[in-house]
C-alpha cells in the first residue's frame, strides 16, 4: 500500500521565536527553518513500514511556500519516494490543509496517512483529525506504536492517564507522538539521490480547494513575563520560606 506523509516547514525546534515589534506575528526573517519534528517521526514511521514490507511507496506532501521544497527534499533524503508541493505563499490553516490532503488522498488512495500530531509553530493539533473527518476514515492520534496486520492497523495512543490501544480499519489516519520512533539522519549519498527524485508542484486551485482563512489574527504579543525571584542559601532557608507560604507545617 501507499503511505502519504504530510510535512510542514517550521521554525527550527532550537530557535527561540521572537514576536515582531508591530505585533503582526513572529519574526521569521533569517531564522533557521526545519521540518516539524513530529513530521520527521511520521516520515520515519512510513519508512519503517516500507522496510517491513507493509508499504510499497511513500509520498511526501507539503502545503507551503516555494522554500517548503527543501523540507520535501529532506523527506526524500530520509527515504520517501516522491513528493508533492502544494504552493501557497500565504499561511494555510489546518482546515485548508486537510481539504487539500483530502483531494490528494482521493487521487492517490493511500492505505495510511501518517501526520505529525501538531506543528510547533501554530500548535493547533488539528490537521490529522480533520483529514480523518473529511475522508470518513478512522483516526489513531498521538501514536506511540503502529502495527499493521491484514486490513487493520493497531495504534497505541499516548493519552492523559497512560496508554490506550485502538484498532482501526484501513484505510486510516495516524498522527505521531514523540515516542513512536527516533528519526534517522539522511546520509550524504541519500541527500544526493533525493535531488533527482520526482517533486510535483501544484496549487490549491489545481485541487479546486478554497483555502481562504477563517481565523483572522488581530495581534500577536509576547506572553506576560515572569520575573526571577530570589535564591536562598541553603535547605533551612528554603524550608523557612516554604513554611511562610504555608506549605510545610
Amino acid at each position, binding site marked *: 500500500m501507499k503511505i502519504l506523509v504530510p510535512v510542514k516547514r517550521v521554525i527550527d525546534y532550537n530557535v527561540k521565536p521572537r514576536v515582531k515589534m508591530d505585533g503582526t506575528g513572529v519574526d521569521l526573517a533569517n531564522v533557521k527553518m526545519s521540518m516539524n519534528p513530529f513530521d520527521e517521526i511520521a516520515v520515519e514511521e512510513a519508512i519503517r513500514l516500507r522496510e517491513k514490507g507493509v508499504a510499497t511507496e511513500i509520498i511526501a506532501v507539503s502545503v507551503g511556500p516555494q522554500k517548503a521544497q527543501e523540507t520535501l527534499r529532506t523527506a526524500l533524503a530520509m527515504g520517501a519516494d516522491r513528493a508533492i508541493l502544494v504552493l501557497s505563499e500565504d499561511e494555510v490553516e489546518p482546515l485548508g490543509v486537510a481539504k487539500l490532503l483530502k483531494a490528494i488522498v482521493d487521487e492517490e488512495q493511500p492505505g495510511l496517512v501518517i501526520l505529525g500530531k501538531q506543528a510547533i509553530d501554530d500548535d493547533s493539533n488539528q490537521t490529522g*483529525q480533520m483529514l480523518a473527518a473529511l475522508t470518513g476514515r478512522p*483516526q489513531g492520534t498521538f501514536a506511540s506504536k503502529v502495527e499493521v496486520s491484514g486490513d487493520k492497523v493497531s495504534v497505541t495512543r499516548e493519552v492523559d492517564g497512560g496508554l490506550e*490501544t485502538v484498532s482501526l480499519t484501513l484505510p486510516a489516519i495516524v498522527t505521531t507522538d514523540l*515516542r513512536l520512533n527516533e528519526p534517522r539522519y539522511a546520509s550524504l549519498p541519500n541527500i544526493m539521490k533525493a535531488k533527482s527524485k520526482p517533486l510535483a508542484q501544484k496549487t490549491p486551485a489545481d485541487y479546486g480547494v478554497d483555502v481562504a482563512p477563517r481565523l483572522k*489574527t488581530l495581534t500577536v504579543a509576547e506572553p506576560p513575563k515572569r520575573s526571577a525571584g530570589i535564591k536562598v542559601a541553603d535547605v533551612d532557608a528554603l524550608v523557612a520560606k516554604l513554611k511562610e*507560604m504555608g506549605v510545610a507545617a
Partner: protein
Amino acid sequence: MTVLVLVEHAEGAVKDATLSAVTAASKLGAVHALVAGDGDAAKAAADAAAQIAGVEKVLLASDAAYGHQLAENVAALVVGLIGDYDAFVAPATSNGKNIAPRVAALLDVMQISEILSVESADTFTRPIYAGNAIATVQSSDAKKVITVRGTAFAKAATTGGSASVESVATGGDQALSSFVGAETQKSERPELTSAKIIVSGGRALGSSEQFHAVIDPLADKLGAGVGASRAAVDAGYAPNDYQVGQTGKIVAPEIYVAVGISGAIQHLAGMKDSKTIIAINKDEDAPIFQVADLGLVGDLFKIVPELTEKL
C-alpha cells in the same frame, strides 16, 4: 448564544478539565453539557454534571459506542446535536483534542485550539510557538469549535447547579474503529493537571532508580503529583505521561518544584503559569532560575533528601 460543552468523565465522575471548559463556555452564553458514555457510569457522570454551577441542561447519550470515547463515534454524535447550538467547546485534554477537530471539519469550521481567554463572542487569545507568543484571533465561522486550556480558566463549582438531564438519541457505532485496551498508571498521587503541588525531575537525576529514589519521597511528603522534563522522559527515567511541557502536559499548580531541570523553552511552556516556582539545580545560570520565585543552587542528591527530611 447556546454552547454545547463536552464533559470529560471517568468512572462516573466529572474530570476537572470539564469545569474550566464550563467557565470558558459560560463567557459565550448558556451552557449545555454533553455526557457521551455507556451505562451506569455515564448516568452517574450526567447527574454530577447537572450539579455544576452554570450548567443549564445536561444531554446524556448512553451507548456502548461511547464507552471508550472513540472520536469517530463521539464526533458523529456531536454533529447530530449541533444544529441547536452556536458553539461546541471541549477541554484541551488528549480526549478533547482527539474529538474536537473531527467535529470542526465535519461542520466545515476552523477550530480555535487551546484558548486562554474569551475576548468577545468571536475573538479569543491562544498560545502559539509553545507559548512564546499569544495570538488574538477572530473567527468568521458561523458556529465556533473551541478547545479550552484548563489552566487558563477558573474551575466552575461542582455544586450549586440543578440542571435537568435529558437523554438524547445516539448515533451508534460508526464501525471504523474499536477499543482494544488501556494501560493506565494507577497512582495514589494526584493527577498532574489537577495537582496543587507538583515535584518534577529532569535529566540530572541520572537514572530511573535515582529519579524515584529522590523525587518520590519529596512528592509523598508534600502530597504532590510527580512530573518530568522531556529530557528525563526521553532518557527513560520517567514514563511519558509524567511529561510537562509543550508536547506533554500543561500544568499550573500552586507550587511547582523543578529538580535538576535546566528550563528548556519547551518545558517552561508547560509550567510557567504555576503560582510559585521553586528550582533546585547545580548550575546557577540555568534558565529555570529566570522564572523561579525561589531558587537553590547545589547538588540535588544532597538537597532534596535533606529538604524531604526537614519538611
